[in-house]
């Protein structure tokens, strides 16, 4: 049995909403797991069940070999960082960190030691006497982290802790969280709907949709080998291009081109997925793109345009290529990196 084990966990809210469907998942000690998915897919619900803040309708959650279903959140030895931080407004930073330790009956000197260590680690030593209302967003974020770290819990739970920060600070904190987690080595679950955050932080990633884990794996596995249309569309930025097509006798017809010798026995309507970065310019290529707009990011250019049948399409090329608006590009798919999905079920077929 692994460190955290979810077995067929289901959550049905009292109003009948089925937020999580029979989800099973194992997380190893020290692992950084990220739940990613669109709004309302049940990420928070799943996390809150691990914390004990929501009852489990069906299934079992085991943490460190103990069944958690009926264990009160105060006894679970988990720490959570909330989206709005939920700092204690009437206590100064020191007491915010110390409160959980005090409740465990730890003696004063040990508390002081631990709080000071955590404060140092997070560079908040200078603010220990301040109330949370006198801190900036980033500092509050650190205090919230400190409150989790100081207790040395079995598992850290993060529910979109970075979404209240501005873009720059977010990237900085993202890095710090990852470093901190590696340093402290605590098993962590991080919830986000930002796929870049998910890719950069995760040891392993669970892509959740409609209360179901669609795919579980390392970020690269999921990027390279999406198992469903949903995962393919969700992971990767800019989004994967999707074209309608038909597969018959191992030949795919889409748009105005055909691809032969496809490794799949599937026959019928399919969706062809091509990542913008898996294309390159080539004479007499498969795809003809009429350029509408070029976004220059410096290192890369994002080229937006339309195919022959007016379908929107995106191509990502190195930033040193100069591409004119209104020009016609002929593109090829690099190394056969295309993904074919069953149109009716969204399952990958190649």
């Amino acid at each position, binding site marked *: 049995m692994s460190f955290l084990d979810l077995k067929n966990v289901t959550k049905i809210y009292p109003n009948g909403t089925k937020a999580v469907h029979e989800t099973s998942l194992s997380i190893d000690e020290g692992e950084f797991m990220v739940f990613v998915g669109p709004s309302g897919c049940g990420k928070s619900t799943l996390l809150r069940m691990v914390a004990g803040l929501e009852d489990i309708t069906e299934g079992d959650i085991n943490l460190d070999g103990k069944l958690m279903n009926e264990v009160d959140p105060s006894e679970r030895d988990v720490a959570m960082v909330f989206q709005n931080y*939920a700092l204690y*407004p009437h206590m100064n930073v020191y007491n915010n960190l110390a*409160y*959980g330790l005090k409740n465990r009956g730890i003696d004063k000197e040990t508390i002081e030691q631990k709080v000071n260590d955590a404060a140092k680690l997070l560079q908040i030593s200078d603010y220990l006497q301040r109330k949370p209302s006198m801190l900036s967003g980033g500092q509050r974020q650190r205090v919230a982290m400190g409150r989790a770290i100081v207790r040395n819990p079995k598992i850290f739970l993060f529910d979109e802790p970075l979404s209240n920060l501005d873009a720059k600070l977010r990237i900085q904190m993202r890095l710090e969280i990852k470093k901190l987690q590696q340093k402290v080595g605590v098993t962590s679950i991080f919830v986000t709907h930002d796929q870049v955050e998910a890719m950069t932080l995760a040891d392993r990633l669970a892509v959740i949709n409609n209360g179901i884990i669609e795919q579980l794996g390392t970020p690269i596995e999921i990027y390279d080998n999406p198992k469903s249309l949903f995962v393919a569309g969700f992971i990767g930025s800019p989004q994967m291009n999707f074209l309608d097509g038909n597969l018959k006798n191992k030949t795919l017809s889409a748009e105005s081109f055909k691809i032969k010798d496809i490794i799949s026995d599937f026959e019928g309507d399919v969706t062809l997925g091509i990542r913008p970065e898996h294309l390159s310019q080539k004479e007499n290529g498969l795809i003809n793109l009429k350029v509408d707009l070029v976004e220059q990011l410096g290192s890369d250019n994002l080229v937006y345009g339309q195919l022959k049948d007016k379908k929107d399409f995106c191509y990502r090329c190195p930033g040193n290529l100069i591409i004119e608006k209104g020009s016609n590009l002929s593109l090829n798919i690099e190394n056969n990196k295309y993904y074919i999905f069953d149109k009716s079920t969204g399952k990958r077929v190649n």
Partner: protein
Amino acid sequence: MTRFITSSFSHLILLIGILIMVIPVWMIFASSTHTSSMINMNGLQMFLGDSFYENYLRVLLYKGGFFKEITALKMFFNSFIMATGVAILSVITSLMAAYALVYYRIKYATLLFWIIFITILVPLELRIFPTYSVMAELNLVNSYFGLIVPISASAIATLFFRQFYKTIPDELLESAKLDGANTWRFFVDFLIPLSKTMIVAMLIFMFVFGYNQYLWPLLVTTSEQYWTVVMGLKMMSGSIVHRFAFVMMSMVPPILIIIVLQKHFIKGVFQDK
């Protein structure tokens, strides 16, 4: 320029309002420092006389009532006990009631709350006879307990605390829980400190409410030993200057409470911002 005119105009209106409220009080105070023959001959006075100590000391220590066994000093003591008791007890009960209503999984919490709330429409005066018979049955007539308890469940204070608790984000309770706080600790470590400002406001409000009670103390006490100041206002006999002096003194405790507690009140408001 126009701003100057409008602002001086509103100041003028405020000043007139203040004068209208203050002048009668001042006249009573000024008159209470004269001798009664002076007042009887010349009417109410605008300026201070020189019988202040004489009049006020006599009022404080004079044994009044039908049986001549209660002094104003004792009445102040009684009123203070009653008002403080009502203030503290009603704040405690409504804090706890609101806590239960908001944080416990009570099935019909909203309904229960509204049932509590409509008791505002049923003031003590309406239920005074049943309340009296309960007190009589329990042998609590002529006791501080009997004076305080029947008016110490405040629907208004419960309303205020409940509305305040509802604005506290759930995450606060949740992180407190994860930090190992049980129900009682959350109440003591979080809700009470967070509602400090409101507690002080309610203490002031309920103190004045308890202090101003007239009909209930009148009914539930037969012994003069339990007379309160407000009852005394009616019962006190004596010359006009002594009554004036008594009226003046009766205003002091509520004002004092407001002055003392207001500091905390304002401090609390500013700290929270």
